[in-house]
C-alpha cells in the first residue's frame, strides 16, 4: 500500500476523530457520532448521484451538522451524554436504513456514486489536524472551548454560557463528522451500503482517548490503525494470510481494545468536566 492509499483509508476516521476531539475538549462525550457519520454517508450518496460529488460533500456536512445539533439540543436539556449518544446511534442507523431501503424499492442501489479525486479530503484531514491544534491552543475561542471542558462554572462566571459554546462546537463537529462520512462514500468506498461506517465512530472515540485529547497523537494513531487494517486486507488479497476474512473485520476493534488494555492508565486524564451535564447555577 502506498502512503496515498493509507491516507485514503484513514481519512474518514481522521475527520471523525478530530470532530470528537473538539466536542470532548468542550466537555461533551459524543458516542453518537457513529449515527451522525451514517447520516453523512447517506446524504453524500443521495446528493452526489444526481448533482455530482462536490454537492455530495456539502450535503454530508449539512446532514452531519443537523444530526449533531439534535444531539446538542438533547444534552443542552441536561440529559446524560452516554444515554443520549446511544440513542443517536440507533436513530442514525434506523433513519438511514429506513430511507435507504424505501429508496431501494424505487430503484436507487447506492452503487456507482461519483467519486472525488485523491486530494481534497485526504490533505484536508491533515490540514485539519494543524487547524484544530491551532484553534484549541492559540485562539481565544479555543481557550473558551477548553474552559467549557475543564470548568464550565468558570466560563459562566466569566459571562459566557457554556451550553451555547457546547452547542456551537457540536454543530461544527457534526459538519466535520459528516465530511468524514463523505470521505468514506466519495473516496474510500464509492458506494453506499447500509451500516457502512461499521464502528468507525466508536473507533474515533477510542482514538481520542488513546491520543490523550491532543490532535497530533490522535492523527498518528489514526493513520497507524488505517495502515494496519489496510495492510491486512492487502495480505488477504495476495492470499498470504490464513486468517478468515470475517475475523479480519474484527481486527481494528481487537487492536484498539488491546491497546486500551496495555497502555497504563494515565494520571493525565481528559477534560475535567468531560461527560458531565452542565446545569446552570441559580
Amino acid at each position: 500500500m502506498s502512503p496515498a492509499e493509507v491516507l485514503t483509508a484513514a481519512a474518514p476516521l481522521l475527520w471523525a476523530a478530530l470532530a470528537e476531539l473538539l466536542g470532548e475538549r468542550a466537555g461533551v462525550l459524543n458516542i453518537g457520532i457513529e449515527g451522525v457519520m451514517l447520516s453523512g454517508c447517506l446524504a453524500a450518496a443521495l446528493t452526489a448521484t444526481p448533482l455530482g460529488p462536490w454537492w455530495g460533500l456539502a450535503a454530508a456536512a449539512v446532514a452531519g451538522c443537523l444530526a449533531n445539533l439534535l444531539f446538542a439540543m438533547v444534552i443542552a436539556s441536561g440529559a446524560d451524554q452516554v444515554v443520549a449518544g446511544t440513542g443517536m446511534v440507533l436513530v442514525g442507523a434506523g433513519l438511514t436504513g429506513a430511507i435507504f431501503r424505501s429508496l431501494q424499492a424505487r430503484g436507487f442501489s447506492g452503487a456507482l456514486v461519483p467519486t472525488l479525486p485523491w486530494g481534497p479530503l485526504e490533505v484536508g484531514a491533515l490540514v485539519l489536524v494543524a487547524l484544530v491544534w491551532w484553534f484549541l491552543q492559540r485562539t481565544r475561542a479555543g481557550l473558551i472551548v477548553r474552559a467549557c471542558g475543564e470548568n464550565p462554572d468558570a466560563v459562566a462566571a466569566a459571562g459566557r454560557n457554556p451550553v451555547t459554546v457546547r452547542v456551537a462546537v457540536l454543530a461544527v463537529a457534526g459538519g466535520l463528522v459528516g465530511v468524514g462520512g463523505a470521505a468514506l462514500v466519495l473516496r474510500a468506498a464509492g458506494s453506499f451500503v447500509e451500516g457502512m461506517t461499521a464502528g468507525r465512530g466508536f473507533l474515533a472515540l477510542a482514538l481520542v482517548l488513546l491520543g490523550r485529547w491532543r490532535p497530533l497523537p490522535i492523527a498518528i494513531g489514526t493513520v497507524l490503525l488505517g495502515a494496519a487494517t489496510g495492510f491486512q486486507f492487502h495480505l488477504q488479497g495476495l492470499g498470504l494470510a490464513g486468517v478468515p476474512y470475517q475475523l479480519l473485520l474484527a481486527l481494528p476493534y481487537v487492536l484498539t481494545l488491546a491497546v486500551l488494555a496495555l497502555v497504563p492508565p494515565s494520571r493525565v486524564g481528559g477534560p475535567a468536566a468531560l461527560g458531565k451535564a452542565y446545569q446552570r447555577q441559580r
Partner: protein
Amino acid sequence: MRRWLLAMAVIAGAGLVVVLAVGADPWQALGAALASAFGSPVAVQETLARTTPLLWCGLAVALAFRAGVWNIGAEGQLLAGATAATAAVLAVPAGPWSGPLGLLAGGLAGAAWAGIAAALRLWRGVNEVLSTILLNLIAVAGVSWAVHGPLQEAARTYPQSDAIPRAAWLWRPFPPGRLNLGFLLALAATGLLVLALRRTGWGLEIRAGGDSPETARVCGIRVERVQAGALVLSGLLAGLGGAVELTGMTHRLFERFSPGWGYSGIAVALLGGLEPVATAVAAALFGALAAASGGLQRVAGVPTVATLLIQGLVIIVLAARRQR
C-alpha cells in the same frame, strides 16, 4: 406515568411520520400493526415471544445502570450466549440435558464476554462504555466467522449453523404460536432481580454504588468490585437471552442473529425506570412494536429497520426528561 405517555407519543408520532413517508395509508397501517401484535391468540403469543429477548436485555441493562456501570454491550453478550449455546448443544449427543446445557453455556459465555470489560475496568481503568461497544463489534464479526467456519451447517450451503436437535428446543405450550418457556424464565428472572435488589445486602450495595458512589465508599463498600460484579451478572442475563432466543425461537445460529436487541434493551430499561417489573412492561410494549413491524412491512411496505429509529428516539426523549 408521564414517562410512559411520552414514550407512547414518540412511538405513535414517529410511526405515523414513517408510514406517511413511505406513502402508505395510516389507517390501513394501524390496522395491520394492531392485527400482527394483538389480532389473534397466535399474534399475542408472537408479541410475548418478541418480548422475551428484549426483557432479558432490558434486565441486563437495568442491573448494570442501577450499579452505575454503562453496559452498552448487551448486544455482544447476547451474541456470545447464542453462539456458545449453539456450540455446546451441537457438541454433545442430544438428550433431555441438551436444553439446560445450552442455557448454561449461553449464560456463562455472556458473563465471560462482559467479564472482559469488567476486568479491564477493575484492573486497567478502561472505560466500560468503550470496551463494551468494541466487544459488540468483535462479537458480530465472531458470529459471522463461526457460521462461515467451525459452526457452519454440514451441507456448507448457507452461512448458518445446523438446526439444534429437537430435544434442546424450549417447550412451546400453545403451538403453532411461538411463545416458549424462555418467556417464563425471563419473568422468573425479573422476580429474582426484584428480590435481590430490594431484600439483600448485595442489592443495597448495588444501589448505593450507583446512586452515590462517594457515600458508598465511605460506608466501606468496595464500589469498583461491586460494579464489576454487576457487569458480569448483567452479561449473564444478556447471554441467557441469547441462549433462550436460540433454543426457543430460531433453533439455529446465523449472521444478523440479533436485530439489535442489546441496544433495544437500553430503551426498555430506561422506559422501565431501571426497575425490573416496570422493565418487563416496557419490554412487552417494545415486543408488541417488534411484532407490529412485521405486519407493517408486509402490508404497508414500512422497512422493519424503522423500529431502530423509533427506539432511538424513545431513548433520546427519555434521556432528556430523566435529568430534568
